[in-house]
């Protein structure tokens, strides 16, 4: 099972990274979403893969409240907030993409299509007093 989940996480990360490297904003955002699935799963499985032992303890004998009977709650708490924050980040990026499209007239990540590998920022001539 561990190998399977590692494979799943690997595929998610791969797909996410590939889309992250695309030239348009929307695929990049989808890529980030895929990447955060992968990362969330990665953090989650740090608590190991346990079936049927959710971290909801019984009120009675607390001596039974150990990892023998329950899975690790901490990665779950971390991932829970990560999911919500991930949503906020996606929303923010989306709006950034919308704004960029409105301001620049295109949805290229560099703000201008066909930038490629050429340097766009010329070596700034330094003002006399600045140097």
């Amino acid at each position, binding site marked *: *099972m561990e190998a399977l989940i590692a494979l799943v996480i*690997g595929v998610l990360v791969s797909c*996410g990274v590939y889309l992250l490297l*695309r030239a348009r904003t929307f695929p990049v955002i989808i890529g980030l979403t895929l990447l955060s699935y992968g990362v969330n799963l990665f953090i*989650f499985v740090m*608590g190991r893969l346990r079936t049927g032992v959710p971290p909801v303890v019984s009120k009675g004998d607390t001596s039974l409240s150990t990892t023998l009977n329950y899975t690790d709650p*901490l990665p779950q708490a971390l991932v829970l907030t990560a*999911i919500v924050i991930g949503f906020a980040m996606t929303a923010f990026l989306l*709006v950034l993409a919308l*704004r960029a499209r409105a301001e620049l007239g295109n949805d290229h990540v560099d703000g201008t299509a066909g930038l490629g590998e050429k340097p766009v920022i010329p070596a700034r001539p330094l003002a006399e007093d600045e140097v």
Partner: protein
Amino acid sequence: MELLLIILLPLLGAFLPPLCERFGRNIGMVSAAIGPLLALALLVSYLPALLERQVFFFHLPWLPQLGLDLSLRLDGLGMMFALLILVIGLLVIFYARYYLAEKDSLGRLYTLLQLFMMAMLGIVLADNILLLVVFWELTSLSSFLLIGYWSHKSEARKGARMALAITGAGGLTLLAGALILGQITGSYSLQVITNSADLIQAHPLYPVALILILIGAFTKSAQFPFHFWLPHAMAAPTPVSAYLHSATMVKAGVFLLARLYPALSGSELWFYLVTFTGLATLVFGAYTALFKHDLKGLLAYSTISHLGLITLLLGFNSELATVAALFHIVNHATFKASLFMAAGIIDHETGTRDMRKINGMWQYMPITATVAMVSASAMAGVPLFNGFLSKEMFFTETLQVELMGGFDWIIPLMATLAGIFAVAYSYRFIHDVFFNGQPVDLPKFPPHEPPGLMILPMAILGVLCLLVGILPNLTVAPILDAASYAVLGEGIPDYHIAIWHGLNLPLAMSATALCGGLLLYYQRGGLFAFYERKYRRDEKEVFEKRIQTLVRSAQRVTDAIENGSLQRSAALFITTGLVLAAVEFWPLGQLLGKVALTPIDWVSLLLALVMIIAALVTVIIHHNRLAALLVLGVVGLIVSLVFVRFSAPDLALTQISVEVVTIILLMLALYFLPQITPHDSDKRRVVRDLLLAGGAGLGVALLTLAILTRPYDTGLADFFLANSVSGGGGTNVVNVILVDFRGFDTLGEITVLAIAGLGVYLMLNGLHLPLPGADGDGRRWARDPYPPILTVLSRILLPLALMVSVYIFLRGHNQPGGGFIAGLITSIALILQYVCSGSAWVQQRLPFDYGRVAVLGVLIATLAGVGSWAFGYPFLTTSFTYVTWPLVGKFELATAMIFDTGVFITVVGSTLLMLAQLGNLAQTTYDTPSGTSSGTNGEAH
């Protein structure tokens, strides 16, 4: 405590002048003088004991883990310097009031001066070498600000920057040296360091530490070849030059040499490095000073030369020479500060500092001339003036030095030569300015004697020069004794200061210097022509050019890495990450741990396959954005199933609700973006990205496997599981961690969420987007605003959904659920209304400003945390109790519930803020197609 006050009182003086300036310049001056005066009074109260060679300490731990303590020491050396700093500082404050023009802010100058005073006192009183470095850098900074005081002048800015670059860099090497000393001795206390000379000098790192510290001292004290910043620092107002760049700050370097003398001196390396640096500086400074036409330029090079003299003396490894060095520090400070004040007065009265123009001033300002003559005589080393005494001692000492190979004569010869030049430039200062015919087109004519009070500080210093020169044993001797004892300890030599030592070689050297100097001055014509003929590089130009080159090459490196293309940056970033990770992973053989794998069941296998296929399909069809989005939803759903499978019900609930809002959000946004992603990347780019993506995925997969096959420390998990009920009052440990154990983190997270919501809101404000009339394939959007069946169903669903949400919220502490999940469910229920009935309909019924709602949520959560203060508990401490309610039964009420309510409200507020705002955008563009790109699209409405 009082030691600390000596340092802090001038700082008080730094705050007062800007406030008091408006009541007039005199009051401003008085307010500036209060602090130093009090500090001086405090210091004087220690004086009797200090002259008895006592030492006072003050210790306050600051950052003990780093060995940085606020420990101070007041001994003879510190006292001598502190006296110089405070007395000359007070005179300069007095002088500056008359020097500075009405339009310049006196308060700002005073503030900076006193900031410097504080830092300088800190250097001389520090007993911790790290503390000393801190104050050292503070003097560099305040010097920078003071040189740049007239910030509208280019030369002031350039001079300031050069001084900061040189002395600041020196401060860094000093820090490195100090850290090495601390490593060697195991302590940063100067007391320990100065008592560990043998340990330090036997250590293999001693040369490194010595050189680093010497660079620090030499840059500060303007020693050759770091001297060039000092003449350019003369762009500062003259009171600053008098104070920082002749009397005090440039002495910090020689102070440091004196302070560390017990620890570092005595070795061959010390002798050669310090002696020859000092010698070169002495001769070079004296030679150059003669040819400067600028009054302050002459004084600056003369200062360099005198600092070289002091350094040279400290390099001799001889006790008597060290006493002479300390003596000369005091003498030089007195006569040089006085001369700078004279230069300031002349500049003030004539409007220029060019000695080719200023001539014959004797007839206009005889008093200034008299005082200047006294000080200049001291500088030249004329008998009966203080400079003579220390110069005699200096000449004596040069004769004692033994150099290898019978070159003993070099140092006395060079010293005499420097003496000749010193006499020549001192004489030039007097003769050119006060005699030498008539003035040549002065900007201000005729000059007058300045107000008496402006001459007073300079005159006081002049009188001191004479007093010390005539009656050394009644004036300076006890202070010098205490200072020497502080440096040399019991090794203090038997010496006495006297004007007449009999006819001997040093006297002959003095006489040679005096006669030779006068002769040189009267034969100066040829020499000046020689000096002018020689091509000389301007240090400032060279320095500026090098800085330019440095900045340009930095820019080139930046451009090579970052050319503005995000794709390129991201690719480089991932490549770097891959390379670094690969280095750590190597060799791959040790990657897997020993823990056995668990078996795979066919349900999991199937789900995994679906997820993998969905993820890959998302990538493959990503050019068709809507389709990719739908497949992405599949991936998200299976992620929540993974959470279900592996015992994480809370995560599954969160994931599935977030998935819903995310997809709605993406669809909304997609409405405004192109429906199709064009094929931008060429084949090479695609292959490169595939390789990078594959590498990243492989790396993460291997890492996951590596961790999962290794044993696992359950200590933390056990703690949370065991303490959840007793400590947090809830059985759902995940929720208890969120709202109780790690409540502070959650507070931070909901704050971020609210900020993101507000950010979205602000960014969408005033946004105008082209309105698409059709989907990607050219099909027009449907005209029916809202499908009726969906509308009716959604309205029926709303109360049910809200009830589920309340239920999920309430049980959250004990069963899967809680504020986050309940908030998301509520949001979805409300968003459904937006989707089905339109913004206008919803907003009529829910007239909330969601931004305020989000902030209110954060506020409630914070108040829930603050509430525990009222009961004397730390922030966010929770308490709980069990109550029994009829019908419902026994349940538990925890204050964490209030916190969770805050979380709930924040989530609802932020989510709706984002979605409703984006939806409104669609609405407004949809409703009013008269926007930028209406055209035929208008009829779609």
